[in-house]
């Protein structure tokens, strides 16, 4: 379903990314952009440090993308939105390659999903599906092994947008 929108999204994101390109070999730190909803809509950027300053949730789980069990740690998405004091019906999530998926806010739980900043205690590079990865504790409950959950599990997260 997300695939249908891909060509248009791709063009938009491509233009956006072009403007951000800096001709430097050293990789700039990736920021997580969050756009709140409502009349006073604003975009807030979170750095890794910002995220680390928040309450962390850690869990171990296997995933369909990794070989063994891995330990993820990061900030619960719900906690992040609460921090921003924003309200809406769903959240639009966009990856570095402009992959986009919309998740109803009702799906959010206190501890799942989290915006993982570390896998097995290490930060994740872009080559390693980093730096931010939305993950669920898949082993905890069969409901987390559903197709929608897998589509919500977005790698290389770049932007979050709360939609009314």
């Amino acid at each position, binding site marked *: 379903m997300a695939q249908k929108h891909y060509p248009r999204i791709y063009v938009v994101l491509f233009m956006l*990314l072009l403007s951000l*390109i800096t001709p430097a070999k050293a990789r700039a730190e990736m920021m997580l952009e969050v756009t709140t909803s409502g009349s006073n809509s604003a975009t807030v950027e979170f750095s890794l440090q910002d995220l680390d300053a928040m309450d962390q949730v850690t869990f171990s789980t296997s995933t369909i993308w990794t070989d063994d069990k891995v330990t993820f740690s990061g900030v619960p998405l719900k906690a992040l939105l609460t921090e921003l004091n924003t309200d809406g019906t769903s959240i639009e999530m966009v990856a570095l390659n402009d992959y986009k998926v919309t998740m109803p806010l009702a799906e959010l739980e206190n501890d799942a999903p989290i915006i993982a900043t570390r896998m097995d205690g290490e930060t994740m590079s872009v080559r390693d599906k980093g730096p931010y990865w939305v993950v669920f504790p898949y082993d905890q409950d069969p409901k987390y092994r559903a197709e929608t959950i897998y589509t919500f599990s977005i790698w290389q997260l770049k932007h979050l947008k709360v939609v009314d």
Partner: protein
Amino acid sequence: MKPELNRYRLLVLAGICLLIILFATMVSNLLTQVRDLSSADEDNIQWSISQIDIEFANLDAVLTEQIAAQTGFSDQLQLRADIALSRLNVVNSGRAREIYGDSSEAAELIEKIEVFGDDAVAILDSSEPLDETDLLELKRLVRDVRPVVRELALLGVRIVAERSEDRRAELAGQLSRTGGIAIGLLILMALLLLFMDRLLQRSVRRDAALSASSKQLASTVAASLDAIVTSDSSGRIIEFNASAERVFGWTRNEIVGLTMEDTFIPQRMRDAHHNGMKRYLETGAPRVVDAGRVELAALRKSGEEFPVELNVTTTHDGDDTKFIAYIRDISERKINEQKLIDARDRAERTDKAKSQFMTVMSHEMRTPLNGILGVLDLLKTTPLNDQQARYTRIATSSSEVLLEHVNEALDITRIETGNLQLNSEVFDLTELMQALVELFEPLANEKNLAVKLNINPAMQGPYHGDSGRIHQVLTNLIGNAIKFTEDGEVTLHVSGIHGTETSSLRFEVIDTGIGIPAEQHEQVFEDFIALANSEGRQARGDGLGLSISRRIARAMGGDVSVKSVEGAGSVFILTLPLRRTEPETRDDSDNLAQNAKQAPTCNILIVEDNSINRSVLCDMLTSMGHTVREAVNGEDCLQKAKNEAFDIILMDISMPVMDGIEATERLRRSNGINARTHIVGLTAHGREEYRERSVAAGMDRFHTKPIRLEALQNIVAEVTSKHLSKPDTAHFPEALSEMIDLLGSAKVANIAEKFLSEIAEFTADLRVASDPLDTLAFAEAAHRVKGAASLLGQIELHDAFEKLELDARDGNLTATQIWAETLEAEAAKSKSVLDGAINRHANTP
């Protein structure tokens, strides 16, 4: 019933178990399927794999653009390169590696991609800033690897498609398995339902049958004519049917809940009922219960007691015992029974009264007949002219016929009441037949008929039997033959066959008379049937004669039958089985006949209440030369017999004040002078009725009135002949040896001495006796000595003293000197005999 039920329950349980197992299997199958369906790991992986190609395309595009723009290496390029490289990890790890795991083709492609990765990373991560050459190199690498990536992506799609095909097949299999189980489940459920339905049907049918049978039972109980009462073990009434309501007068509603004891069991039976029930419940030993029909009494509500027939059964309802009583009101039956008994008793009484009447009537008729015949007999002994003699004869024969009729009527009564008694005595056939011929000859001569007797010589000889009855039957047959024959002859023919002990005798009375039509042959034997002849007069049969004859013959084991041709004559046949005996010498009877004429003078006492009979008898005996005394009843007889010794007492049996039986008993017990006198019983009643009683009382013989002159002569002759017969006393008379055996020779010697001294005293008295003689004293003394002589078996002496006694009583005692000498001579003879006997016995141990 029970095992069947258990089988059904087992079947249902097994079905349910099977259902549960099937259901569990199905659920677990379904769960597995749900899990398989809900996990969509591979769809996502497929997406990821397909995306790899796009990321490389993007990288290629960015590279081409940068080279063309000659902007050099940019962050944009770096990001795109990193993203593309990050996708290489995707095929190398997690579920993707699993998908490609078994494919060598994939392994080859992945290796190429890894080589590209290493080369790309080497370029990208070089410390030097990337120049155009690097970019071109990178572009070449990307161009080279893109077909590989594309191929890998396509391979991934294919493999995943295959895998999902397998999965779907597996799922389909699992689904059809589940479906199969579900179908099985449904079939089983259907079967169980069918089975349940059948059971339901059955139970419905059974219910219906049960209810029908219980209705039937209820209607049976309700319609029963017997009262049916059901009680529990404590006697409390549970059921009470309509008949019970009618019989007892209680309604069902009133009595149910009360006890039998308090309601319909009579007061006097309550204890017995209570104990009986208690005993039955404790021991199970039945008395009334299960004992079949018992007759008891019960109480109606009104308090009236009535007889019932009761049948009690028990049923066991679980632990509770129920009593079911079937009660029939038999009061009606009892009343009817009583009525029947009364009716029978009345009939018996009437019958008895009739017999009594007949007996009394015949007695009453015979008593005057006795007088008539007696007087006629006496009249014949007086001088009569011819006419008088004829009248006398006619009167005699008419009286005889009348007597015969009376006797017949009595016989019928006796036969009907079963009192016919037959006497078995020895008789001579020839004699019997000759007497009959002699009896009927005068009658036959009157009609100019010949009477012939023809006895088969082989059949002669004495027989045992009731000659009187045979005589009676033949008299009847011969009488009839003469009566119904106008000319010709009457023949008596006796033939027969000898058996081992008995002989079958055949007496034929053949006449040449009018005969009897064949259809009337049996009628002549019926009671009071007389066949009318052409003149309307009484013909064959005297009313009773033939029927009596036949009955008597049958009572003796024989029969009377008839063969006849009308107009040619009749043959009446008497057949009889008779026991044979050895022929006796006929000398005795000759002597008897002679003795009858020369009977010595006897002293006879007549005891009779009827004065005519008494005087007739008295005249008869006196004419025969006997001395006669008269007494009017038993008491008078005892009085007269006290002081005077008699040779014969003729004793009437029924008399006022004291009858003949009692008088005889007293006389026999008295030890008086007449204790051993010959007593002849006389009665107008039937011969048999008093025979036993009179014999028991001690009478020597018995005679039915009227007693005729000839019979009287014979009796006296017989009695006197016994006295006159002289057994041989020269040897040892029986009486003497018996006495010696009994008392011992010493005692008998004493008695003999006393006896002889008494005789000596007597003769001494005789010698010194002077006129006028004290004859009575001599008679008494002679009587005493006579008794002692008889006791010691001295017959000569006994007879001598008897003669002397008689003479003395008659007042004819003369020639006392001669008497004394005779007696002394006899005494001497006796002494030697006595001494001999005593000595002989004394010498033998």
